């Protein structure tokens, strides 16, 4: 595994470098004292994981994550113990290490990273298989850029006022559009509106409880009126 370290404190970088040096299959490609340098590096290079300080002057770790087009797995390193819940809202974040980091805790993090990388590999493999069957795409307009998304990569579409959030496995795209408008473009064979604010790709459902479905890490409410149609579409035993 290849990694980079991003932290404005030299002492913190030295500590993470030392922790990494004890993991035989983890190579540090580079260390950066600010987010901008790291972004420049990532525009030309790929890594498996970033150890990222969340609290940096000017450009925080979260700003950094939001800037990356295809972020790798990220482990946050921080002195703040109360940030964990917010941190896990971001898809690429696999762990959250509170400084000072111990070797034991760091090794647990490495196990999580490896697990996450393994799961990604499986997802890519399965997506490749699916894409041979369905080559349909949709273009979404973000800041005057048209971004192509494969329909089978879309997990959930959520209405957010005048916007919609199109959630894929890798990231969430915020688009100035309505749920009604995107619903017309999505194939009924795989997409279904299950709540006034949510359309789901029902082939991605992991499990269903009484009033909600789980897709990846997203728990989506099911409205009472939409539940019968969802149940009808599922391949129930």
């Amino acid at each position: 595994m290849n990694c980079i370290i991003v932290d404005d404190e030299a002492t913190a970088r030295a500590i993470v470098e030392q922790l990494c040096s004890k993991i035989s299959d983890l190579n540090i490609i580079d260390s950066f004292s600010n987010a901008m340098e790291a972004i420049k590096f990532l525009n030309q290079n790929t890594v498996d994981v970033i150890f990222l300080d969340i609290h940096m002057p000017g450009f925080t770790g979260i700003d950094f994550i939001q800037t990356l087009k295809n972020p790798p797995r990220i482990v946050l390193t921080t002195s703040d113990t109360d940030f964990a819940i917010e941190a896990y809202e971001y898809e690429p974040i696999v762990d959250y290490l509170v400084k000072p980091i111990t070797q034991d805790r760091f090794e647990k993090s490495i196990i999580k990273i490896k697990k996450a990388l393994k799961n990604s590999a499986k997802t890519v493999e399965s997506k490749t298989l699916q894409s041979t069957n369905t080559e349909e795409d949709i273009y979404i307009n973000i800041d005057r850029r048209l971004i192509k998304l494969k329909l089978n990569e879309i997990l959930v579409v959520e209405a957010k006022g005048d916007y919609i959030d199109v959630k894929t496995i890798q990231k969430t795209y915020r688009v100035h559009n309505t749920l009604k408008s995107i619903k017309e473009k999505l194939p009924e064979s795989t997409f279904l509106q299950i709540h006034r604010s949510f359309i789901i790709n029902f082939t991605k459902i992991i499990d269903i409880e009484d009033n909600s479905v789980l897709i990846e890490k997203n728990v989506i409410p099911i409205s009472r009126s939409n539940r019968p149609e969802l149940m009808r579409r599922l391949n129930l035993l």
Partner: protein
Amino acid sequence: MEQQPNLNYIKQLAGDDKAFEIKFISVIKEEIPLEKKEYENAIASNNLKETADIVHKLKHKLNILSLTEDYKLAVTYEEELLRGDKKLDTKFSTILEKIDAYTKNL
């Protein structure tokens, strides 16, 4: 009793790796006086947001040096600075003097 700084965490992390211990000491000897100076300038200019950012960086070093009680004070101080309150300046400055003196003698 007032806590005194030590390198227990760093020694544990280093194990037999003396080179890391030496490198780390050199880094912290360089960083603490710089950040202490930044702190003094920020508080003197009454820029409390910037002061809070520097306290945030310094509080990590308090943890590294096993100053758990001083770390707790720094956590409170950082929060208070962000609310516009700098009354813990004197106590925090005393802590800074303590770690500065310690690292100078490493």
